[in-house]
């Protein structure tokens, strides 16, 4: 069923507010999405009626809180096609999910000279943990390059994968929008004997996600980009991998027994959840995936693809000098459009657009190596979610005229 943006917009209270007297046109969902009433209410209802710490109390509300928290885990597990809830570890965000892999799996499996393959389009969160391991252990990092069209260059894939122990790749670029052929890369990686870590931050909110169909061994997502709250993300990994991995952080929750001379870790997934977890956030994330599931991810994808195609066409028609990074075919990309306009600095573009109520991000988008590859210091980036519509694209296109007048 096609999305009716008029109805969807009504579900997001923030979209009612004005900025500089103008309607809020929020085009920065790749950075963080807005939240529907269903999420906001689920969280406040939890606090108003149920809150207690989880996995501890025997009293009624503690039991209810535990049930809600674990139900949140089950929602996420279903949403990404996991076999079992024990394969879903709650984290603070996807950055922590990737760090968990680097610290726990990485430090028990990678030594000097071992090869980790990343790509030139990774977010810093899938670069820095591995660069740190390189500095600490002397692992070797190789990178799949990016073509001039903004696609991963897979022409030397087998050569680059030769001898690799892990491939870390983003499913969708947060700068170029490029949807990467994860299954193909995963099959080649597995053939070469490597594990596959997929950064799903920009996938899970926008396309149907099935960790098994992707061929992932590790998969990370982040709640606040998928209509959920901040402060929660998840790492999925196959149960036998998680079982074999040592704990990441130590403390309460993650133990079965603690003695003065040692400890026995808890079962998965709790083994990786030290301390009081983000309980209300799990309730909120659960409401967010329910909301997305009710619309249907295929419908979300269709809507965002059409919007992206419309934006690519209107932007290029109106501003022939606009440089759009990444593939120009909307079927190859998610709803993320990074651009540069003449010599106008992205900071100035973003400032001018704000005057019209249009929120776009300016900067390096935590992907400095990719900025270098593109030959720019920064880009402006507009990104879409379920609640955006053609009028939002028109507002962006019209507001750019002010930048033209001021700077060009």
């Amino acid at each position, binding site marked *: 069923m096609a999305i009716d943006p008029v109805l969807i917009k009504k579900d997001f209270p923030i979209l009612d507010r004005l900025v*500089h007297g103008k309607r809020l046109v929020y085009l920065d969902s790749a950075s963080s999405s807005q939240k529907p009433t269903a999420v906001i209410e689920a969280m406040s209802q939890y606090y108003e009626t149920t809150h207690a710490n989880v996995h501890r109390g025997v009293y009624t509300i503690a039991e209810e809180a535990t049930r809600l928290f674990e139900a949140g885990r089950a929602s996420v597990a279903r949403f990404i096609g996991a076999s079992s809830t024990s394969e879903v570890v709650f984290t603070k965000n996807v950055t922590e999910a990737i760090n968990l892999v680097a610290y726990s799996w990485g430090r028990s499996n990678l030594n000097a000279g071992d090869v980790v393959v990343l790509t030139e389009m990774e977010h810093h969160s899938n670069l820095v943990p591995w660069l740190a391991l390189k500095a600490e252990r002397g692992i070797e990092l190789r990178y799949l390059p990016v073509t001039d069209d903004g696609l991963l260059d897979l022409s030397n894939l087998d050569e680059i994968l030769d001898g690799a122990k892990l491939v870390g790749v983003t499913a969708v670029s947060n700068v170029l929008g490029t949807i990467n052929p994860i299954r193909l890369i995963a099959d080649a990686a597995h053939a070469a004997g490597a594990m596959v870590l997929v950064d799903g931050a920009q996938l899970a909110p926008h396309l149907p996600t099935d960790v098994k169909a992707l061929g992932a061994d590790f998969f990370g997502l982040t709640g606040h980009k998928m209509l959920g709250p901040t402060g929660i993300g998840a790492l999925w990994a196959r149960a036998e991998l998680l079982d074999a991995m040592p704990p990441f952080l130590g403390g309460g929750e993650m133990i079965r027994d603690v003695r003065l001379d040692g400890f026995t870790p808890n079962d998965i997934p709790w083994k990786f959840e030290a301390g009081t977890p983000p309980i209300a956030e799990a309730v909120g994330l659960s409401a967010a995936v329910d909301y997305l599931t009710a619309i249907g991810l295929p419908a979300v994808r269709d809507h965002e693809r059409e919007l992206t195609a419309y934006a690519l066409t209107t932007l290029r028609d109106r501003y022939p000098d606009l440089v759009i990074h990444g593939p120009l075919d909307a079927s190859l990309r998610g709803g993320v459009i990074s651009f540069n306009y003449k010599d106008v600095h992205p900071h100035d573009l973003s400032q001018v657009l704000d005057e019209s109520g249009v929120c776009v991000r300016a900067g390096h988008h935590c992907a400095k190596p990719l900025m270098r590859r593109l030959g720019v210091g920064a880009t402006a980036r507009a990104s879409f979610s379920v609640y955006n519509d053609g009028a939002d694209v028109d507002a962006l296109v019209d507001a750019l005229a002010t930048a033209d007048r001021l700077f060009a």
Partner: protein
Amino acid sequence: MPGLEDLYREIILDHYRNPRNRGELPIPPAYAETGFNPLCGDEITLYLQLDGDCVDDIKLTGQGCSISQSSASMMSTAVKGKSLAEARATIRKFKAMMSIHEQRLDGAEDGSEDDSGDAEDEVEVSLGDLEALQGVVKFPVRIKCATLSWNTLVQALDHLSSVQP
């Protein structure tokens, strides 16, 4: 609510479109210092050549938004040919306008002219065109853009005062 006209004053756009003192200076005798704004990736390299107690020449390269570039351009015209005391006073006055009040600039300990540096001893300087950047204060995220070149200048001056007392 502040409007774009508070930020993008004509004089700012003029310095952005026609930056003054753009380019490089041979090192030595000049000294070069690079500053980064990690938030947006802006980068500026400042070449500073002193003649005794005087800013003999200053040049700038780098990339950045209209605010960082125009601020750098105006800064270069404001300090070129001035005494070090005047340059330091201009920096202090500019930072005060940006609502950045520092007790004392780093590295000032060994510079006797800065130590006593309170109002009485302060050299009289005027910000001139730089006053146009006042509007930036109303856009707090842009203050870092405006101060990038100034912080780089401070680093360069501190370095030079530490190597040639």
